[in-house]
């Protein structure tokens, strides 16, 4: 059987693509580099949009990336069920692309925050969280200046009612509404979160935990069993 193939997208200004690819490989999948200017998803089984400052965060975080040629392929594929994970800038891109509702705005305290963050996994019913237990507390690094999740009252109510809040901050770092750190789409295939699971997969790097592994083992299990 050939290995599951997870695409890792690089835009100009992406920073975390190497860590993302490494996390994918550590979970046992093949990391396939995807380039923003290509029109080709290279037949991958899932896609990881890593963090960074794509297009220098010009205009709004993720606003330019959302129109990259690769996104022209990725957006319809994601709507058709391709699993996609976006962390940090990747989450911002998913919101700008309207694959996830709401938006990420400037942190309440204006400070760029870089620290280890406690979170609660709210649902295991997504493509990327089956290896967690609902209610499980984990620790992942965060590093962002624009991570305050906002959405209108009706959207927030819908996310809560449908169990689509995936990760919630324990000790809200940035003013996110409802302490939201990550959400999913209606089908549970697209997940976005501000924290960085790809930075928490190995003890060797001094990570606060290896809790990030769960997202990658979850998607691998899904792809292998598919």
């Amino acid at each position, binding site marked *: 059987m050939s290995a599951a193939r997870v695409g890792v997208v690089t835009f100009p200004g992406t920073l975390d693509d190497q860590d993302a690819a490494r996390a994918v490989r550590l979970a046992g999948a093949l990391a396939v580099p995807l380039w923003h200017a290509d029109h080709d998803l290279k037949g991958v089984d899932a896609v990881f949009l890593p963090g960074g400052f794509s297009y220098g965060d010009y*205009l*709004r975080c993720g*606003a330019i990336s959302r*129109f990259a040629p690769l996104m022209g392929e990725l957006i319809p594929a994601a709507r058709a069920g391709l699993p996609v994970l976006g962390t940090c800038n990747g989450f911002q891109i998913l*919101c*700008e692309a309207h694959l996830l*509702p*709401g*938006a990420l*705005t*400037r*942190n*309440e*305290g*204006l400070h760029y925050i870089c620290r280890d963050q406690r979170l609660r996994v709210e649902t295991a019913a997504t493509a990327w969280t089956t290896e967690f237990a609902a209610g499980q507390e984990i620790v992942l690094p965060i590093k962002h200046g624009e991570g*305050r999740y*906002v*959405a209108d009252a009706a959207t927030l109510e819908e996310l809560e009612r449908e169990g689509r809040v995936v990760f919630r901050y324990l000790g809200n770092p940035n*003013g996110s509404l409802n302490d939201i750190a990550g959400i999913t789409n209606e089908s549970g295939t697209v997940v976005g979160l501000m924290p960085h699971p790809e930075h928490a997969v190995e003890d060797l790097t001094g990570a606060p935990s290896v809790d990030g592994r769960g997202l990658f083992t979850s998607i691998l299990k899904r792809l292998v069993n598919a």
Partner: protein
Amino acid sequence: MARVIVDVMLKPEILDPQGQAIARALPRLGFSGVTGVRQGKRFELELDGPADEAALSDVRKMAETLLANTVIEDFSIRVED
């Protein structure tokens, strides 16, 4: 040739911590009488033709598509005299 101005502002219900920081800085600098500040963006679009109805309709599409994120921002369009 015409110049069209697009102003983009965070919706009133969206927190604007940058505006708040500016509002807090003003009294420290000796300016009084300002009760609130909201910060936004201004885009100046140079058109290669007149700012007629068709052109302004295009500008509206540009604003909705790229210049503003209508989830969190409102925009207004005007032609500069």
